[in-house]
C-alpha cells in the first residue's frame, strides 16, 4: 500500500509541472498586464512596480524564480492586493469554499445514490424512468441557469429561503449547496444505477435471497457495497471538481469563497493569484483522485488482498 501511494505521489510531480508551466506562460501570453489599468499611471511608477514584482526580468528567469518559490511553499505576493500574499488569500477563501463543496457533496451523494438505487431496483418502470430523466435534466442544466431559477422560485416567489449571502441567515447555505450539487447528484445517480443493476443480477444476490433475508438487507448489505464502487471512484474527482467549479455558484450567491478570487484574479491579470489558485486546485484534484482510489481499494477485499501481496 505504501509503495502504491508513493508511486502515485511521484506521478503527480510531472502532472503539476505541466500545469504550472502551461499556466505560467499562458497568463503572460494574454494581452494586458496587472498594471495596465484604465487610469494612466506614470511610466516611472509602472517601472517601479514591475521591478518590485520582478516583471522586468527575462521570462525564463521569472519562471525559475517562481518554481523556486513554489518549492518552498510560497505562492508569492498578490499583484492586486498589495501587501497580501497569495497563500493568505487562498487560505482565507478556502474554508468557505470547502464548506460549500462539502454541503454540495452531501446533497449530491444523498440524492444521487437514493435515486440511482431506486431506479436500479425496478429497471424499466416509472420508478426508473422518472429519476433518470430528472438526472439527465440535472446533468444538462448549467449552474448559472439552475441557480437563478432556484432563487426565483424559493427566494423570490415563495420567499422561503434567502436569495444570496453566506453565513448571515440560517437557510442561506441550502440553495447554493443544491445548485452546486445537482449536476453531481445526477451523475452519481446514473453511476449508482449502473453499479446496482450489475450487482443485483449477480449470483450472490440470489444466494442472499435464498437464505430468506428481508429484501432491504439484500439491497443494503449485499448489494450496496458492490454497487457503489463506481460512485466511490468518482467521489474524489467530484469533490475536487466541486471545489474548483464553485466560482459560478459563489458569484451567483455572493459567497466570499476562493472561486470569486479566482475569477477576479483572471480579470485583473493577477498573475501570481491565477497561478497560485490553479496550482492549488490541480494539486487538490490529484490528491482527491488518490484518496478515492485508496477508498476503492479499501472497500474491495480482493483488491486489498492483492495490494497487500504486493501485486
Amino acid at each position, binding site marked *: 500500500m505504501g509503495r502504491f501511494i508513493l508511486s502515485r505521489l511521484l506521478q503527480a510531480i510531472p502532472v503539476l509541472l505541466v500545469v504550472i508551466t502551461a499556466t505560467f506562460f499562458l497568463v503572460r501570453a494574454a494581452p494586458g498586464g496587472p498594471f495596465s489599468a484604465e487610469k494612466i499611471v506614470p511610466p516611472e511608477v509602472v517601472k517601479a512596480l514591475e521591478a518590485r514584482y520582478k516583471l522586468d526580468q527575462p521570462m525564463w528567469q521569472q519562471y525559475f524564480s517562481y518554481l523556486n518559490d513554489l518549492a518552498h511553499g510560497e505562492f508569492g505576493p498578490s499583484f492586486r492586493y498589495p501587501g497580501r500574499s497569495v497563500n493568505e488569500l487562498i487560505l482565507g477563501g478556502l474554508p468557505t469554499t470547502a464548506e460549500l463543496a462539502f454541503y454540495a457533496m452531501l446533497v449530491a451523494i444523498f440524492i444521487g445514490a437514493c435515486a440511482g438505487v431506486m431506479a436500479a431496483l425496478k429497471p424499466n418502470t416509472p420508478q426508473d424512468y422518472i429519476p433518470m430523466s430528472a438526472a439527465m435534466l440535472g446533468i444538462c442544466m448549467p449552474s448559472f441557469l439552475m441557480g437563478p431559477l432556484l432563487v426565483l422560485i424559493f427566494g423570490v416567489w415563495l420567499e422561503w429561503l434567502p436569495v444570496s449571502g453566506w453565513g448571515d441567515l440560517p437557510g442561506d447555505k441550502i440553495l447554493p449547496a443544491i445548485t452546486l450539487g445537482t449536476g453531481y447528484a445526477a451523475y452519481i445517480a446514473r453511476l449508482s444505477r449502473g453499479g446496482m443493476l450489475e450487482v443485483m443480477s449477480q449470483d450472490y444476490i440470489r*444466494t442472499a435471497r435464498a*437464505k*430468506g433475508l428481508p429484501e432491504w438487507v439484500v439491497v443494503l448489505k449485499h448489494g450496496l457495497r458492490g454497487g457503489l464502487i463506481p460512485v466511490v471512484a468518482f467521489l474524489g474527482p467530484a469533490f475536487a471538481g466541486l471545489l474548483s467549479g464553485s466560482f459560478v455558484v459563489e458569484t451567483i450567491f455572493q459567497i466570499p469563497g476562493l472561486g470569486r478570487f479566482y475569477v477576479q484574479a483572471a480579470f485583473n491579470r493577477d498573475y501570481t493569484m491565477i497561478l497560485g489558485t490553479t496550482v492549488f486546485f490541480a494539486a487538490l484534484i490529484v490528491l482527491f483522485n488518490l484518496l478515492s482510489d485508496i477508498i476503492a481499494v479499501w472497500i474491495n*477485499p480482493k483488491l486489498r*488482498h492483492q495490494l497487500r*501481496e*504486493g501485486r
Partner: protein
Amino acid sequence: MPLLTVNDLTTHFHTRAGVVKAVDGVSFSVDQGQTLAIVGESGSGKSVACYSLLKLIPQPPGKIESGTALFDGRDLLSLSEKQLRKVRGNDIAIIFQDPMTSLNPYLTVGEQLIEPLLYHRDMARKQALQRAVEILGEVGIVEPEKRVHSYPHEFSGGMRQRVMIAMALIAEPKLLICDEPTTALDVTIQAQILKLIRELQQRRNIAVIFITHDLAVVADIADTVAVMKEGRIVEQGSVDAIFNHTQHDYTKKLLASIPKGAKPIPARIEDQPLLSIHGLSTTFRDHSGSFLKREQKLVRAVDDVSLDIQHGEILGLVGESGSGKSTLGRSILGLVPTSGGSVVFDGIDLTGMSGKQMTPLRRRMQMIFQDPYASLNPRMTVFDALAEPLLYHKLATRKTVTKEVLALMDDVGLARASIRKYPHEFSGGQRQRIAVGRAIATKPELVIADEPVSALDVTIQAQILKLILQLVEKHNLTMLFISHDLSVVRYMSDRIAVMHHGKLVETGETETLFAQPQHDYTRQLLSAIPLLDGPIAVMV
C-alpha cells in the same frame, strides 16, 4: 407421506419473443432422508422448476402459472412473500452451481454464514459465529476459527463450495436443493463434494433434490430419478428402473451419450513421431510474498516433459486444472515462451524460432480452444472466421474462398444457410463446430484440442467428440487432446499421458492405463471419477 409433493407446476417466461414454457406441468415428490435427482440438459427447466418452489425466479419475465407444492402440509406456491421468506434458508436451502460467483465477494464468509441464524433463529452474533466455526469444521475446512474471517476469494473453488454447503445447512433445513453443485469443479474435488453431501444427508436425515446433467453422478447418489426435457418430466422412477429398465427414448439417448468404453487401436497410426518434445519446461514468475520481502518465485508450469506423438495418433493429456496441461499445449505451439528443452515437429526444431519463421509452420499446427463463446470474435460472421485463415495462408483466393468455406461448413456439420450469421446466433455446440472448422481450415497435420467440450452439455459433447473423431480419420490428423474429464479422454484417445504439478507422471495405451495404472496419482485420479459401474455397467 412425502416431505414435498409438487403437482402440475407450470412456470412460463413472458419475453418479447413470446411465451417460453420453461416448466410445463411438472409433478414430483421427495421423502425425508431420500434423494431425488432431476436430470436434463441445460434449458430443460430443471433449475427453474426448483427455483419456482421458492419464487427465486426473476419475476417478471417469469410467472408461475399453476400448480401446487405441498411442503410439510403447506402449499409453498400460495404463501405470501413474507411467509415464504421464513421458508427460504430455514426449511429449504439451496446450494448453487457456481461457488465462484455465488458468494458475496465483499463480505467475510463468517458474515455470510451466520445470516440464516440471525434472521431465522434470532441468535446473537457471537453464538452464531461460534456455530459457523463448528459447521465449517464439519464440512472439512481446516482451521475454521481463522477461516471464518476470510473473504471468499481467499478460498479455492472446492473450498468455496464447502462454504456454500455449510451456509445451506447451518439453519438445519429439512430439504436441500443442490443445483449442479459439482459442475464447476475438478473431478477429484467433485468426488469429495458428492461424498460430503451424501454424508451430511445421512447424518441429518434430510431430503435432497439434486439437479444435474451428469447421469454418472446420479447413479452414485440418487434414490429416485426424474428425467426432464423441454419443461416436462419424460420419465421418473427408481435409479434401478431408470438405468436398467429405461422406457423413454430420450433417457436412452442420455445414457448412450455418456462417453465410455474401449475401442480397437485404429489403423491410421503410423509408427513414426510427428511431434517430439524433449525436456520441455515453461516457467512463470509468481509475484506473491509480502512487498518488502518480495520473493520472485518461479512456478514451473511445465517441468521437464518429454513426449512423442505418432503420425495419426490421438494422445490424451489429462490432469487437474493447474497441472500444466494447457500450458504444455500452448508451449508446443510457441504461444507462451518456453524456458528449456526442445520441440521437434516433423523433423523441424521449433525451439528459438522467430515469429516469421513460425508462420508457415503455424498452418500445419492448429488449436481448438475450450470456450466457444470467448474464442470466436463476436463481430465476425462464420464466413469471416473461416475465410480468414484460408486467405492468410493463401490456401484460397478471393474467388474460390466462398466455395472452400462452404466445403468446410459441410465438413463440420453446419448448415450452409448460416454462412452470414454471427457467433451469438449459434448454440454452444454449433459455435464449437465453427471453432473446429477454423482449426482444420488450413489443413493442419497437428491439432491441439484444449478441453474442446468441457463447456458443453453431454449430448452435445458426444456430437462434437464424434465429429472430431470423424475429422481425424478423414483428414489424417494427429491430435493432442487435453481434458480433465477421464471418460471423454478414454473415449477419444489412443494413448493417455497424465500430468501432475507440471510433470508427466505416466503415459500408456488408453485401456492399459485404465486397467493397470502405475502411478499413485493416476490411481487417485481414476478412483475419483464417478465411474459407471453397478447398474450402468450393463449399458456399456
